[in-house]
C-alpha cells in the first residue's frame, strides 16, 4: 500500500506536448481508474509512474519518495500490459516467478510462492504450459500472477482487458476487483472503456488531450460532469446535446422554439450566455405529441436491447437518443413529444466547455481546460 502523488507532471516528445501539467493524488489502497479516449496521455502517465517513460517536468512520488530518477525495479510497482508481454520461451511457472528469480529468491521459496500465486489466479493446472498454449484469458491470468507475486506497493494496469472478448472481459473485471480487495495495494488502471472505468473505480479520472478533465467517484462524474467532454464521454448511449442560449430571466432555454425550463440555480448568473445543453438518454421522456412543455419529434428508428430499447428521435435535424423501458413501445415514423426534465439538464459554456454551475474545486483543471 502506498500513496502516489503527481505534481505538475508534463511530458513532451520533442516539441509535441503530451501532458500539460497533471496534478493528482491517489490515496493508499485506492482503486484509481484513468479514463480517456486514445491519445489523451493516460497510458503515458501510467508509464511515467512505472518508470518506463521519462518525466519531462514535475514530480511523481510513491509513498513520499520522489521516483523521477529511480529505475522501474526500484519503484515497487508492478504492471500488467495490454498485450500481456509474457516471456514466450518460458512456461507459466517461470513467467510468474521471473521477478523472484531475478531478485535471487532461493528455489524452494520461489516454488512455494509460484504455486501460491498460481492458486490465487487459478492457474495451478497450467504451470508447465508455454504462453502460446494458453487462451487469452489464461494469458491474462499469467500476467496478473506475474504482477502480484512481487507483492508490490502499486499495481499498474495498462488497458489489460482490451484484448479479451466481451464475456471474458466482464469476468476478468470482476476478478481484478476481487483481487484488489484481497491484496489492497494501490491500483492504477488505464482504460478507454467507460463501463470498465465506472465499475472498477473508487476514484475515476477522466483525461482528454493531455489534461485532467475531472476527478471524482464514478457516480459524481456521471451525475455532475464538469465539462461537456466528460458529459459526452461518460454514459452509454452518449448524452444528447443541443446548443442554445439561456433566456434573459435565466429560467429556460429554447429547443426548436419550445421553452425548456431549467434549474434557476443553473441559469441564474448566466442569463443570455450561449450554452451547450446536455441530457442523458435515460432522463429523456417520450410523451404523446402535443403534451404541454414537450418538443415535437419524429421517431427515426428504434434500437432493441431486450431489457429496453433506445429510441432515436429527430428534432430540427438533430438526433436525440431516448432510453425506454421494456413496456413502452414506439413505432418508427410516428410523431411524439420529447420531455426534458429540468433537474437533469446539464449546461456547459459554449466557449469553455465548462459546467455553468460548477464551483471550481480544482483550480488546475480549469486553467488547463481554458488553455486547451
Amino acid at each position, binding site marked *: 500500500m502506498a500513496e502516489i502523488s503527481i505534481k505538475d507532471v508534463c511530458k513532451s516528445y520533442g516539441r509535441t506536448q503530451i501532458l500539460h501539467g497533471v496534478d493528482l493524488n491517489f490515496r493508499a489502497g485506492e482503486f484509481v481508474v484513468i479514463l480517456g479516449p486514445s491519445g489523451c496521455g493516460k497510458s503515458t502517465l501510467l508509464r511515467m509512474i512505472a518508470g518506463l517513460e521519462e518525466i519531462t517536468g514535475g514530480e511523481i512520488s510513491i509513498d513520499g519518495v520522489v521516483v523521477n530518477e529511480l529505475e522501474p525495479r526500484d519503484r515497487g510497482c508492478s504492471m500488467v500490459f495490454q498485450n500481456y508481454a*509474457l516471456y514466450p520461451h518460458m512456461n507459466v511457472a517461470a513467467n510468474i516467478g521471473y521477478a523472484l528469480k531475478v531478485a535471487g529468491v532461493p528455489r524452494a521459496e520461489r516454488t512455494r510462492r509460484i504455486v501460491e500465486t498460481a492458486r490465487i489466479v487459478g492457474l495451478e493446472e497450467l504451470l508447465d504450459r508455454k504462453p502460446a498454449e494458453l487462451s487469452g484469458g489464461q494469458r491474462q491470468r499469467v500476467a496478473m500472477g506475474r504482477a502480484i507475486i512481487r507483492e508490490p506497493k502499486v499495481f499498474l494496469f495498462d488497458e489489460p482487458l482490451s484484448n479479451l472478448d466481451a464475456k471474458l472481459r466482464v469476468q476478468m473485471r470482476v476478478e481484478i476487483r476481487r483481487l484488489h480487495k484481497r491484496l489492497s495495494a494501490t491500483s492504477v488502471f488505464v482504460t478507454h472503456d467507460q463501463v470498465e472505468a465506472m465499475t472498477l473505480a473508487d476514484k475515476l479520472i477522466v483525461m482528454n488531450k493531455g489534461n485532467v478533465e475531472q476527478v471524482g467517484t464514478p457516480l459524481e462524474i456521471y451525475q455532475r460532469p464538469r465539462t461537456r467532454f466528460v458529459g459526452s464521454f461518460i454514459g452509454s448511449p452518449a448524452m444528447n446535446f443541443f446548443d442554445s442560449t439561456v433566456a434573459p430571466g435565466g429560467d429556460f432555454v429554447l429547443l426548436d422554439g419550445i421553452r425548456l425550463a431549467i434549474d434557476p440555480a443553473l441559469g441564474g448568473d448566466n442569463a443570455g450566455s450561449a450554452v451547450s445543453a446536455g441530457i442523458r438518454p435515460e432522463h429523456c421522456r417520450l410523451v404523446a405529441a402535443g403534451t404541454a412543455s414537450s418538443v415535437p419529434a419524429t421517431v427515426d428508428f428504434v434500437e432493441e436491447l431486450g431489457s429496453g430499447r433506445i429510441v432515436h428521435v429527430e428534432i430540427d435535424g438533430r438526433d436525440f437518443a431516448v432510453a425506454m423501458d421494456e413496456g413502452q413501445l414506439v413505432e418508427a415514423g410516428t410523431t411524439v413529444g420529447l420531455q426534458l426534465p429540468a433537474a437533469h439538464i446539464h449546461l456547459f459554456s459554449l466557449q469553455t466547455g465548462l459546467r455553468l454551475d460548477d464551483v471550481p474545486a480544482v483550480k488546475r483543471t480549469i486553467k488547463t481546460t481554458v488553455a486547451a
Partner: protein
Amino acid sequence: MNKRAVFKSWWLPILFAFPQLLLILFFFYWPATSVLTWAFSLEPAFGGVGERLFVGWDNFRDVFADTEYWQSVSLSLFFAFSATALSMFVAFVLAICVDRQLKGSGLFRFFYIWPYAIAAPAVGLAFRFIFAPESGLIAVVNTWSPDLWNPAKFGSHAMVLVIICFAWKWIGYNFIFMTAGLQSIPRSLIEASSMDGSGPVRRALDLQIPLLAPTLFFLLVLNLTESFVGPDTYGIVDLTTEGGPNKATNVMVYRIVSEAFRGLNYSGAAAQSLILIALIMVFTFIQFRYVERRVHYK
C-alpha cells in the same frame, strides 16, 4: 493458390537460365570435377593430361600422414571458433546498445555496418599497417617493452591479428542480423522484464539471447563456415601474415591455395579440399542436429 508462369516453349526458359548455367558450369562444376579427378590421381605439376596417373587414396594417405597438415587443421579450428566467438560477441553488444537507443545509436548503426562492405584483402592490408609492430598505430606498445607486440615474430600474435581482422569485418554483418532480430522482440517484453527487476545484462541473458536464438544459430553456422573455409579467411591471412611466422597462421584454406598454386601440388591440395568439404558437412550436421534442438523458434 499456386501462381505459376508456365512457359509454352522450351527454348525461352533455357535462354533465361543460360547465363546462370554457364556461370555454374565454369565456376562450380568444372572446378569440382577437376578437384575430384586431381584428388585421386597424380597430377603433373606443369600440366599434360597424358601423364596423369590414377593413384586411388594415396593422396589422402599422404595428407593424413603429414603432421604439418594436422597442425593446420587445429589452427583452422582455433581460428574459426575464436573469430566467430569474438565477432558474434562484439556484434551482440553493439546491437544491444543500438537497440536500447543509446545516444547516437542511429549514427553508429550506420558505421557498424560499413566494415562488411570492405573486401577482405583490403581489410587485411589496412590491419597490416595498423598492427605493424615497428610503425603501425600499435607500435607504441613496443616502446613500453620491446616485442610486446610483434606478429612477424610470434605465431600467437599473428593468430590474434588474423582473428581480429576477420572478426572486425564480420561484426558488421552479424550486427545487421542481430539488430533486426532484437527489434522484432516486442518492446513490452523488455519493459516487463525491467519491471520484474532485471538490468540490461540480465535481460540480455534471460530474454534477448533466447528470443534471438534462431538468428544467433544462423549466424553461428554462417560464421563458422565462413571462417573455416571462406574466401575472407584466405584474403586476410594472405595480406597480413602469409601463413607465417613459421606457419603459425597456416590455416587450411591458405594451405590449400599455397600448396596448389605456389607449391604446384595439385593433387595434395585437391585431396585437402575434399577433406575440408567433408569437415564442413560434419560441422554443419552437428550444429543442426545438436545445437538447433535447443533453439527456440517462436
